[in-house]
């Protein structure tokens, strides 16, 4: 009974994963690994929730949502700039700076909530995003638009070609006159903005306030979706959909007779287990961008 009725739920849970994963994909295709997605989503979610709580009554619902999303994107983008400085300018280990930003986000989000609302969470806002036709939230449409836009940019525009070149063979790209660092910077900032957008969608559709376990691994699921989707837009889309479905089952399995005996944790594990198995099966065939995670040093400087 629940399967058809729960399509809006699947889309609601898939949208943030998909948007974040697309950002992560762009970042990795340019040659920068972004483990910080989890923390960046949290920053976005906090930014959106806090802004919406403060602006909802003075500005009106619609305008407040728009500005909150914008604030979330800018905040996450600012944090991803930190990753950019470490990974691109200082040649530091990209995994370390990613972990650092995740830890930092843990502190910063609750710190801001403490300062603004004197609690370890934001106040509750009255209404999040309103669901439209078919009970589907706008976040689903946003994620589809982002997906199509990114596919077009990556494969139809010169910028996309340059970006992919930077992730595969930065030396060649540089010698062909492409500014590798500039391209990588743009990719990191875009992935930050998208993670912020996803965090905002997450808090505005799935909750009424920001708490420290709102994101709880969604950023890592997005990271899994990038790898399981083989770093390609269609693959990432299908992987995100699968993982969104798994999250839906984790929530509603209790109500479905045949599945009610399975603990929800089994569905929670699916994204991670599936990705790990897929990585083992893909082994030997290098789908990952060749230069992903390797710092690029301009020779002769």
């Amino acid at each position, binding site marked *: 009974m629940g399967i058809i009725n729960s399509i809006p739920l699947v889309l609601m849970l898939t949208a943030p994963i998909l948007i974040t994963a697309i950002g992560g994909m762009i970042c990795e295709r340019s040659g920068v690994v972004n483990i910080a997605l989890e923390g960046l989503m949290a920053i976005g979610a906090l930014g959106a929730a806090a802004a919406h709580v403060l602006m909802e009554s003075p500005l009106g619902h619609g305008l407040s949502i728009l500005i909150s999303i914008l604030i979330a994107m800018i905040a996450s983008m600012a944090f991803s700039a930190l990753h950019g400085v470490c990974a691109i300018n200082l040649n530091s280990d990209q995994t370390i700076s990613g972990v650092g930003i995740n830890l930092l986000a843990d502190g910063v989000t609750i*710190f801001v909530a403490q300062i603004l609302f004197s609690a370890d969470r934001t106040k509750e806002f009255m209404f999040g995003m309103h669901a439209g036709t078919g009970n589907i939230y706008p976040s689903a449409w946003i994620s589809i638009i982002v997906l199509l836009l990114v596919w077009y940019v990556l494969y139809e525009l010169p910028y996309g070609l340059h970006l992919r070149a930077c992730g595969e063979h930065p030396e060649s790209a540089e010698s062909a006159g492409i500014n590798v660092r500039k391209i990588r910077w743009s990719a990191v900032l875009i992935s930050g903005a998208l993670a912020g957008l996803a965090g905002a969608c997450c808090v505005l559709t799935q909750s009424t306030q920001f708490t420290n376990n709102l994101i709880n691994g969604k950023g890592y699921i997005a990271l899994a979706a990038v790898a399981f989707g083989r770093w390609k837009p269609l693959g990432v889309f299908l992987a995100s959909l699968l993982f969104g479905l798994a999250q839906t089952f984790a929530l509603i399995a209790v109500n479905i007779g045949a599945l009610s005996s399975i603990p929800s944790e089994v569905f929670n594990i699916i994204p991670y287990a599936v990705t790990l198995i897929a990585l083992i099966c893909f082994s030997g065939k290098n789908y990952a961008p060749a230069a992903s995670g390797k710092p690029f040093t301009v020779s002769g400087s």
Partner: protein
Amino acid sequence: MGLDNKKGKLLGHDRDELINLADKALKREGVISVIVVLLGFLLGTLLIAFVGKNPSGMYSSIWQAITGHNTVTGRFNIRNIGDTLNYLVPFTLCGLSIAFAYRAGLFNIGAEGQYIVGMTVATVCAYYGPKVPVIHAVYCLLMATAAAAAYGGVVGYLKSKFEVSEVVATIMLNYTALYLSRMVCMALPGATTYNTSPFPKTALMKWGPLESMFNGSTINLGILVLVFGLLVYWFIMEKTILGFELKATGFNKNASLASGIPTRRSTILSMAISGAFAGAAGAVVAIGSFTYGRIVSGMDNYGFNGIAVALIGNCKTIGILLAGYLFGVLKQAQQFMQTRGVPREVTFIIQGVIVVFIALRSAAEIMRARISKMKVGDSKAKSGAPASVKAE
């Protein structure tokens, strides 16, 4: 011309000395660690001041965590020192875990997951182990360590056999461990949403005399596990052939393979031993700090902070212990900070900032490259002959 030369020499002399000093300082890894930590605290202090709170609250809390002396009431309580030492244990053990893999050239982000596996297995064994004093607790610890070693070793196997990146694999296994732990612990006696029924007394690492010495602190025999762990780490790394092989593999895998070192075995072993350290940390927290089983809903973050501990400690035994102490102090100081009106989350921010600033290590290398270029520039001017630039 002569005047110019003299002037250049004078200025050049001062400059040379300054450059040499900077070069020497940046070469010392310990100096960089201290700079990174100081920068973290500086940023934390500025942040507290920026939001209109008094930063001295943070420092008096830290003072209290270290010395047990409360500067507000003037009272002294040795319990605070004991609690800090208790927090030091899991941080340092997780630091050893990450450092062990790191020196073999592997990045174990999965210490968090291995920690959870250790915690879960210790919890299970606490109910179903042999209820004999001492033996029971040791049994819990050994089982937890073995299970976590297997959980880490799998990653090493996948890495050496299928070339699966250990970073991605361990990230996947972290949350897998979290949900598996929930499933297992929900099936234990007296399971509610958050915890299970109290452990049998024989499973606990508590020791009366130690507790009363520290005025009822949470400190327990886990501290012995830590001492043993530090000795094992130091011994394997510095005194055994295995340690040499691991370090060689981390330094240059192909050269090691060519000179007959079984690098595949090194990879699996180092991940397994790394997991064992994290598992021991989990066991110490499970049956040392708690008297009942926990059903965890999120990460404890000991494993992730272990990355910072290992890197600040430069993967050296003493360094890791000092860094672990710093993190233990920060954790213990949190509760005092809250009562002094300073948001305790600032300690998380300091920890995060420290990890991000570890990037300074590579920045230091860039700076040194620049310095050596300046030097080369000088010698070029003097001799007129080109000099080769050493990258390191």
